[in-house]
């Protein structure tokens, strides 16, 4: 039995900041939820089910926060699910919410993802020493930097490509009133910044943010009354082991397989020609060219050429992260849902100053763990025909 059509009819997000000391976790979530509900023209009472996502509990030190959040999120008397797939969780949470509608179980599902990074220190939380093992771990940057080096070596990319990405995304964020870092950056400014985890520089690194994102996903009947639904054309999740002999950490198989399945579901044969805007999970600048290849926007080894030629800038062949992306706002658990939500805003023509003119189909993408969880969707302005 096939899926029934579903669409995003409401998108909401918080103003992302290093510290949102004015709100609790519940207040942060409600800020995003209330905006999404207002956008959808619905009230919390009209929602059938709530799906919550966030990254590891060690980040806030609250085990299973969905239990304490249930009442504040209006989930009393409704199904409440919590999803966790590390950094990709915002994406997979949106997919779980979508599947509850696509399966015909519910008509109106609200999903919210959040992180309040200011409550602890993610670098610490990701580097807790394990007995007997060499304590060389140094957070997410320390994990991904060697693989970025591998990409540079394998692709022969010039070493300033990462800086082009960072300058582009940070400058894009100037057009996004919700972004955490809103400051114009040039390639030279990025190149002049400190090497944190060589070859990753300070300005090529995502910030640590407090923030949340929420979506309202509805079935066809409900979506009919929305002036601009973002129809879901395809959703895919894939995972793979963190470590395995000869595992490709630059171009992971799970990501390649997920992308191939996604394009097939969405009826897309040439992603670069058919996708008008892409929101790709790029926490460290070099992941833009890496994921362009992994997703099939470029042949292996050629992703950096699109970046260098300016094709991923607004107005390029495949605008990537017009919102400023993870490099400008990184409430970890919400970062994936922001990618999915920003893709929806693009095809709804509701992205404001960072709108890509006439966007009809957009990609939302997230990855997590040691590049071992992938979640992605394609949304479109038109109802899918397949």
């Amino acid at each position: 039995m096939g899926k029934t059509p579903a669409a995003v009819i409401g998108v909401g997000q918080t103003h992302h900041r290093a510290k949102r000391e004015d709100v609790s976790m519940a207040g942060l979530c409600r800020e995003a939820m209330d905006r999404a509900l207002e956008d959808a023209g619905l009230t919390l009472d009209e929602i059938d089910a709530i799906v919550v996502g966030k990254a590891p509990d060690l980040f806030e030190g609250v085990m299973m926060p969905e239990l304490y959040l249930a009442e504040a999120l209006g989930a009393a008397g409704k199904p409440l699910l919590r999803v966790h797939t590390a950094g990709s969780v915002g994406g997979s949470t949106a997919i779980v919410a979508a599947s509850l509608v696509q399966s015909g179980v519910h008509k109106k599902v609200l999903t919210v993802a959040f992180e309040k990074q200011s409550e602890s220190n993610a670098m610490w939380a990701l580097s807790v020493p394990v007995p007997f093992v060499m304590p060389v771990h140094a957070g997410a940057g320390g994990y991904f930097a060697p693989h970025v080096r591998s990409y540079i070596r394998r692709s022969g990319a010039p070493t300033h490509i990462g800086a082009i990405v960072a300058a582009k995304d940070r400058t894009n964020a100037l057009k996004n009133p919700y972004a955490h870092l809103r400051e114009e950056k040039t390639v030279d400014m990025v190149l002049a910044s400190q090497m944190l985890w060589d070859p990753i520089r300070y300005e090529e690194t995502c910030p640590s943010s407090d923030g949340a994102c929420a979506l309202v996903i509805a079935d066809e009947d409900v979506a009919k009354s929305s002036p601009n639904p973002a129809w879901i054309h395809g959703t895919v999740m894939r995972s793979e082991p963190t470590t395995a002999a000869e595992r490709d950490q630059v171009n992971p198989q799970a990501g390649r397989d997920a992308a191939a399945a996604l394009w097939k579901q969405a009826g897309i044969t040439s992603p670069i020609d058919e996708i008008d805007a892409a929101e790709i999970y790029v926490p460290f600048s070099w992941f833009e060219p890496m994921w362009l290849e992994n997703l099939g926007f470029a042949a292996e080894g050629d992703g950096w050429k699109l970046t260098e030629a300016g094709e991923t800038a607004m107005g390029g062949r495949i605008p990537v992260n017009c919102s400023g992306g993870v490099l400008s706002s990184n409430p970890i658990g919400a970062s994936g849902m922001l990618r999915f939500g920003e893709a929806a805003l693009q095809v709804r023509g509701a992205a404001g100053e960072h709108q890509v003119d006439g966007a009809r189909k957009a990609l939302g993408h997230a990855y997590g763990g040691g590049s071992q969880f992938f979640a992605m969707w394609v949304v479109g302005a038109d109802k899918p025909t397949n």
Partner: protein
Amino acid sequence: MSRTLSAPVTVSFDYTRSVGPVIGRFLTGLRDGRFVGARLSDGRVVVPPPEFDPVTHEATADFVDLPETGTVTSWTWVSEPVAGQPFDRPFAFALVTLDGADAPFLHAVDVASPDEISTGLKVRARWAAERTGAMTDLVFEPAPVEPVETPTEPVSTSSTNETPAEPVTGIVTPVSLDYTYAASPEESAFFRGLSEGRIVGQRCPKCEKVYVPPRPACPTDGVPTVEEIELSDTGTVTTFCIVNVPFLGQKIAPPYVSAYILLDGADIALQHLILDIPVDEIRMGLRVKAVWKPRDEWGTTIENISHFAPADEPDADFDTYKHHL
């Protein structure tokens, strides 16, 4: 001897929690020695106030002050208190409904034995002398049976006769968890090998890849990797990063080079330190050899190898390790 090695791990952090305007108002009240509750849309008075009304979902806004006396509606006896609890002697946890409130909240009651507490017992708050705006600013104790003409000293806030202190906007929540970390039997064999100066891997019977450290199951084939293979302590740097950033809990002072080292005979790289070479000369393909600590410092740990150092051999050809990137 146990099949598996284990070691204690403590994960602890002082979480800085922002509490938002509603809980902040309640905690500010505690700091000032009074209970702040809220009247909800259904008319109930609840303390602590919920952040959002359970019926209308609107932010709570109708705040009410409540007295410091109430009634035990249910209780349990804590005969063996643990660290972090309100008392280091036996006490009761009770649901206390404050006079004028419609719902109870959980707190500690200071009584010496379970005979001194029962459902229906009248209790009152006993405020701490130093208050910060936290649940620990008070405990409950049995209230005097007869109403006292002049009750005990009026509750004074820590800021009496001074300008009112800033509202409470956050609390610090120290969390500390003690774990016993257990290595798998296969990893334990690896760590025990290291205590004898040997590096022991295992080969998957299906894909024939050699894993170091060995796994309970091959990640690709899902079968046990039983055949033991002793590996060389010489290998090739496949890729690496230079850690320049200091962070909380860091064990090695930056800058240091965290490298993936593909030991000769292994099919997966392991992570270790590279030293004895200027950082800017470290490169992919560099051949390195383990530098072992003095034998009397060895334990069952990879840290028996102090670090890896250049092996004085020509660099490995890219084709020999490119499929490990």
